Each structure stands twice: as C-alpha cells, then as structure tokens.
C-alpha cells in the first residue's frame, strides 16, 4: 500500500487534524505529558502549604490569583481544595489515561497488530479533539469566578451541588465546568474504546491469532472494555448533578438540608447522596484498572524484550488480565464501606476485593518468574520497567488493609489511602509509562534517547517517588485524615508533621528530577543518535515497519508466523525471531 500518490495532505490535515493513528498518538502523548506536568505542579504548590502551614508560597505565591491565595500569598483552604480536586482530575483523566490509552494505545497497538490504521480514523481524530476540549474546559475553570472545582476529584454531593453556586450566584463556575469537562472526557474515552475494540478484533493481520497478540494489545483490549462499560454511568451521574445544580432538582439532595443556617428548600428533597457515590465508583473503580492495565502491558513488552526470553506463562497472564478486568466491575462499593453499609454487602464486597487481588498477584509473579534464567539487559527502559515491579507490589499490598472492611474503618480517608493509590499510579503506572516512552521513542522518531540523561532521570525519580509516598503510609497509619489544609490542627497530625515535610521535599525534588527527561525528550527528538530499524532486537510487529513508520505503516502487509515473544529459541541463529519472518527467512 504505497501512499505517496494517494495521499498528500496539507500541513493542517497532516499534523493538526490528522486521521493517522500515529500522529494522533503523538498528539495524545505530548498533550497528556503537558497535563501530567501541570497536574504535578498543582500538587507541588499544595505540598508547600502542607509542609509549612500558613507560610506564603515562595516565588509564585503572588501570581496565583485571588481564588487560590490571599493577599500575602498564603494558599487559601478553598484554594487548597481546588488544587486537590484538579490535581486528581487532571492526573487521572487528562494525564495518565490519555497517555496510556490515547498515546501508547493509538501509536503502538495498530502497529503491533499489523494494521494500516485504526478502524475508524475520523472517529479517532474526533476522540482526540473532544479530549482537548475537555482539557481546555478544565483549565478554563481556574479563571471563572470562584475558581476551579473544589469538592474533591470525587465531587461528592451535596457539597459539590451547593459548591460555588450560592456565593457567586453564577452558574458557570468551577464545579459546573468540571462536570461538563468530565462529560467531554468520558465521551472521548467512549469513542476511543469503540475504535480500539473494533481495531483489535477486526484488523489483525493474517496469522495473528488472539493468542499470538502481544500482551500490550491484550491489556489495551481489556482496558477498552472497561472504558466502554464503566464510563457511561458517570456520564449519567454528571447529567444528574448538572440538573441538581442548574434546575434545583433533588437527585442527590435529601430532604431538610440546612446550609449555614439557611434552609435549602429550593430543593424538593427526597434524593440520595449515596446514589452519586454508586455511579461514581462504578466508573472509578474500573478506572483504576484503566490506569494500571496498559502499564502492565508496557511492562510485559519491555521485560520480554530485555530478558531475552518469552514472558512466563503468557496464557496465564492473558486470562489474569481478562479476569481482573471483569472483577473490577464487582468491587466498587469497597470505596463506600463507611457510608452505613450492612454486613451482607460489606462481606460481598470485601470478598470480591480479596478475589481481585489474586490475579494481580499472579501477574506480578509471572513477571518475576520471567526473570529466571533470563539474560537481563539493563537499558533505560528496562530499569524503569524493573522498578515498576516492587513499586506495584507495594501499591497492591497496601490495598489489602483497605479492602478488608474492618481495617478500613481505621484507614479509610487517611493518608494511607493516598499512599496506596499513588504507589499504584505514580511509581507504578508512571514509571511504566516512562519505560514505554524510552522504549518506543526510536520507533516514533527514528532516534534514540540519551542513556546518560536517562540514568539521570531514572535514579532520582525512583528515589523521590518513595520519599513522597512512603511517609504517607506512615502518616495514614497514624490516623491523619486526608485533604486537611493543615494537619497540625490535630495532635496526631502535628506528631507526624516531620514526615509531611519530608514528603513535600520529595515532591519538589521529583519535579527537579524531570528536567533531564524534558531535555532528553526534546533534544533527542531533533538531534538524537539515529536509531537502527530494530534497536532493541524485538520480535513484535511494530518493529517490522520502518522507523518512523510512513502513512499506512507497512510497506507490504505483514504475515504473522509465531507468537509474540520468541526469544532465545533453542537452535535458532539469533536470539530473537520476529513474528513476521517465516521460518525459511530466519534460517
């Protein structure tokens, strides 16, 4: 499928409103990296207030505007809440998911299945631009009267319904825009997920059976199903909350609310605040797996490649991921143990939660067993991938005390929760995403990233991730509630303030540690060392295409002859056998 004479679009069609999955993938990746850094910056501001309560924010305190800081540059409690809510939202919905699914999924998945593009290229483009619109909405909400949404990334009503409305008498405030932004982001994910599933099921090349798919593609397939079926309920919930805000309906508003001494009888009442929580967590628990599964997929690819042997128990891994995806829909109420749940429901949900930990253990064990009898190459992607394993282990293990309802009584809504899920998402998923960037960079640009800068990025990042999140587990065990503007108001909080200071310094250092990456990313894209076609000696199909792949990807449609990880096959000439080369060509 040569494309030179059929396709010669102008600049805008080629790089801005492109329908090419690779351009869209890069657009997704770059946009989401910017959002990741932005979301991280919000947290760095919050960490100042946490470490030094009531002190003016240095350097930038004067610029943050009246909704975030007071005249002296001290972060306001409502500003802190806004930063917290937006940090969560941005990192999850504008950062990690778009990078893992929109970026890596879009770029790598079609290549790995030998497809010329996604099944619906125009839908793909729409998905990206809806995502951008959602992002713009979220950013804009910082500037509307009253500032951005400040009711937490979970937006629990009635707080979120009454938030901002009464003070500013202004419908277009942060919470409303947050809801609209979420609806856009969910729509984008839905479009993407339909596209991904059809592409993976329909567009595989000849010979590429489901059980010859790279693990990454399986992870994307399961992720897409999660997006497809878990996101709509939040879309519905968002509409309900918008109606509560705009038309004073009472979906989430019980009878007889009195806020600051004022009876809120504009709400007829009769609603249930818990309804929101059900609909929210029905989305947000699978969402956790949307964050982690693509990361596991990336790790699988890189570990297989750099251990120079097949992934241990490929089929077990696939079944575990599918099972994990399914189970993720049946555990959501473990976020709601303390909403007045009785014993039957709690027993059901803590049992399902323990069950879901088993495939996670199986996956981790399989990855670890892949190292046995391997020939491990410690290149930069592999370092990131290896660091993922113990970090993900901590993240997973610390989920156990939260998943059992009895121990959750003490740990619920403390810093322990924050430590737990950040271990999964930050040193876990984000390390995996970095691994993926280093791994596929030569594919995308045709150039390699600097190894020295890679090391300068990796080691401090790993260290400071732990300096940030390790103390949170300790603070949480001590019983300190999360989302406190100043934890030293409480005896227990004051006792562990030292750990909070340490955590904050970790965060700022982590920010600094990203400089080598940023330099490396841009410098190498322009002036990095030219890479050979298959620099990692990998077996999967994306390396069968030229780097960077042209429009249409493959010069001729490849045919697949074997499974994805045929490394170190006994008696073979080389230690890797690409999927697309027939036995005749290999010998």
């Amino acid at each position: 499928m040569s494309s030179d004479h059929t396709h010669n679009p102008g600049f805008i069609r080629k790089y801005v409103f492109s329908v090419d999955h690779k351009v869209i993938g890069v657009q997704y990746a770059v946009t989401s990296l910017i959002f990741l850094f932005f979301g991280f910056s919000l947290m760095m501001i919050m960490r100042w207030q946490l470490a030094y309560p009531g002190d003016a924010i240095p350097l930038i305190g004067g610029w943050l505007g009246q909704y975030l800081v007071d005249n002296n540059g001290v972060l306001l409690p409502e500003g802190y809440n806004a930063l917290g809510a937006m940090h969560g939202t941005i990192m999850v919905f504008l950062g990690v998911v778009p990078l893992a699914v929109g970026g890596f999924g879009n770029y790598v998945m079609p290549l790995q299945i030998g497809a010329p593009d996604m099944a619906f290229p125009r839908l793909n483009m729409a998905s990206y631009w809806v995502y951008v619109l959602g992002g713009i909405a979220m950013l804009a909400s910082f500037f509307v009267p009253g500032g951005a949404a400040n009711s937490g990334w979970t937006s629990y009503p009635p707080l979120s319904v009454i938030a901002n409305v009464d003070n500013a008498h202004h419908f277009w405030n942060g919470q409303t825009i947050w809801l609209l932004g979420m609806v856009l982001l969910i729509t984008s994910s839905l479009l993407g997920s339909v596209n991904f599933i059809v592409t993976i099921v329909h567009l595989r090349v000849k010979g590429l059976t489901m059980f010859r798919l790279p693990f990454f593609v399986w992870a994307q397939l399961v992720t897409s199903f999660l997006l497809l079926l878990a996101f709509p309920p939040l879309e519905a919930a968002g509409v309900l909350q918008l109606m509560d805000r705009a038309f004073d309906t009472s979906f989430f508003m019980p009878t007889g609310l009195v806020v600051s001494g004022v009876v809120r009888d504009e709400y007829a009442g009769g609603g249930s605040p818990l309804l929101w929580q059900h609909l929210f967590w029905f989305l947000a628990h699978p969402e956790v797996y949307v964050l982690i599964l693509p990361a596991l997929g990336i790790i699988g690819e890189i570990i297989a490649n750099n251990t120079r042997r097949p992934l241990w128990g490929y089929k077990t891994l696939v079944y575990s991921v599918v099972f994990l995806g399914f189970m993720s829909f049946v555990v959501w109420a473990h976020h709601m143990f303390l909403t007045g749940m009785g014993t039957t429901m709690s027993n059901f949900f803590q049992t399902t939660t323990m069950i879901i930990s088993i495939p996670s253990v199986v996956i981790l064990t399989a990855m670890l067993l892949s190292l046995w009898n391997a020939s491990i190459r410690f290149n930069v992607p592999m370092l990131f991938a290896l660091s993922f394993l113990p970090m993900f282990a901590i993240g997973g293990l610390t989920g156990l005390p939260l998943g059992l309802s009895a121990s959750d009584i003490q740990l619920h809504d403390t810093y322990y929760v924050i430590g737990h899920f950040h271990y999964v998402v930050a040193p876990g998923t984000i390390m995996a995403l970095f691994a993926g960037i280093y791994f596929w960079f030569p594919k995308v640009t045709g150039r390699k990233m600097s190894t020295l800068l890679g090391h300068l990025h990796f080691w401090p990042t790993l260290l400071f991730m732990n300096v940030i999140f390790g103390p949170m587990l300790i603070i949480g065990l001590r019983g300190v509630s999360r989302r406190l503007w100043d934890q030293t108001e409480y005896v227990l909080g004051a006792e562990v303030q030292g750990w909070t200071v340490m955590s904050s310094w970790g965060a700022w250092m982590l920010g600094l540690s990203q400089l080598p990456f940023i330099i490396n990313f841009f410098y190498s894209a322009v002036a990095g060392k030219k890479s050979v076609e298959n620099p990692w000696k990998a077996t999967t199909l994306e390396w069968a295409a030229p780097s960077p792949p042209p429009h249409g990807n493959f010069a001729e449609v490849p045919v697949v002859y074997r499974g994805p990880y045929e490394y170190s096959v006994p008696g073979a000439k080389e230690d890797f056998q690409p999927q697309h080369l027939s036995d005749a060509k290999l010998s």
Partner: protein
Amino acid sequence: MIASSFWLPPNIAERGSEIDIIISYLHIFMAVLFVVWGVYFAYCLVRFRASANPTATYADAKAKTSKAAEVIVIVIEAILLVGFSIPVWAYYRSEPPTADKNPLTVRVVAQQFAWNIHYPGPDGKFGKTRPELIDEALNPIGLVDASEDPNRADDYVSVNIFHIPKDRDILVRLTSKDVIHSFAVPLLRVKQDAIPGMEIPIWFKATKTSEETQKIMTRAYAVPESAAGRRAEKFINRNRLLITMSKNGSVPAGTTLTAEHLKTLIADGITSVDLAPAFPVNIQCAQLCGLGHYRMKGQMVIHESDDYEAWFAEAGVEEVFEDDEEEDD
C-alpha cells in the same frame, strides 16, 4: 504487644485492638511477602544479568514454589477475611449495645464545620427537631420548644465538645445538616460517614479517661538550647497543642509552652520536658466537607462515670451556646 504497634495511635476503645490486630497481621504478612519477592528479585537481577548469563533459557521455569506462594497468599487472605475482618465488622455493624447494657445514646449532628452533640437528658428521649427552627448561634440543630415536645425539656446540646463516661457503651446516632462529613476518632478506632437525610448508628466503649490517655501520650521532648531562633520557634509551634505534665522548674503542670516559658525552662536548666496533648482525643472530619474541613475539630472528653454524671447535672441545667469562632461561612 502487637496490637499497640508503633505507628498506630494509642487505642482506648474496648474492641479497638481487634482492628489493630488485623492491621498489624496484614502488615507483617505484606512485609514478609515483599521481602521474599524482593530477595528473589534482587537475586535474579544479579545472577541473570546479561554479562553473567549471556544466553537466556527459552523454556519457562518450573513454578512449583510460586504456585505454593500463590496458594499461601490466598489462604492467608481468606483467614484474615473470614477469621478477622468479617467478625470485627459484624461487631461494628450489627451488634449494637442491647438495652440491658444501658448504653448512653447521643445524637451527633455534623455541619459545616462543627459537631453538634445532642444529649437526650435523663428521660433518654430526644426532643423533636425541625430544620426551619435552626439558628446557628442559639439552636444549631433546630430543637422545638419544650411546650411542643416535653421530651425536649431536659435535652442538652453541646458544640464540638463530646463528653462521655468511660466503660459505658456509647450509641451515637450520626447525621448531618448539610453535606457529607465523616466522624473519625482515631484513638477510639471509630469512623463513620455522617450523611444528610440518614441517621446512621455507631457504637463504641472507651476504656480510658482523657486523663489516662494523656498519660499514655506523654513523651519527653528535648528543650532547645536557646530560647530564640528557628529551632525554638519550631519547638513552640510544633507543641502548641501540648501541655506540660508535671512541674518543670518554675513552669507548672498543665501549661501550654510559650516563648516565655521556654526562657524559664532554659533558665532553670531543664533539658527535657514531659508534654502531652491538652485534649488527647480529637474528633476529625475525614470526608472533605468544604473549606473548613481541616478545622472541623471536636474534642472527646472522657470522664470517670461519676464525674460524667456530675458534669451532666451541671451542664444540662442551663443551656449555653458559646459563640463558636470556628463556625462560620
């Protein structure tokens, strides 16, 4: 004793140690698992590095050990779930104190940003409340007039200070006026969301009075060498919630340290001072409830049984609502 492990706050609830045991066992289990994985992981990285093992083996390693490990994980999780978590949760959720135990029943009404404690008084019956009667300063939970409901006559409402007797079952009916809050007392191993429109019951029994708790939480703090400078400032600021526990030189027991006191201590040649929280049992709000979430702080005052009766006899007579500065917006 494992139940009072290092990081958990002191436990003063009758059955709080059961939660501590689960948390402690879980962490031991997690630590063992992590170390075993870690050792294996580190061994692999060294033993199978490319320079030490240039050719990898194609066939999968036999995984008997790992299968065994997975089974062990499943078994331990099942034991913790069935043997510990489910029964403990049942106590917290389905075994309210029976009438023969004579529990003290109290309504707690959360609001932005205070805890209203509604005592039914000697008759044990709560007076009616109506939202439209709520007056933030005078009648924060909207109690009706005694002429409308005689049960209300002996009711007493306290703001942010929750007096209870020790060694008696406390049954709290928890609700909220406005948004979702969460009633968390880490030392009592109690936490429950307060949801408007629902009155959710929780129960607990304190085994120590506030004074006894203070004693447990007493720690020796090193006195900085100079009364000026950043270290001294930090010392004062960090310890602003603490009071001295015994007479130190010319600083009397029960003093909150100030810069002045610090000077006195240094002048008296005291190098270490015993401090404990003035109010050791804090009620925190654990659910984000607005801009004042961080300062939605209540104090639990746990009396000996007699002292509690004496306190209530005095307090219940006259209803005084202090103008609470923490209550605004």
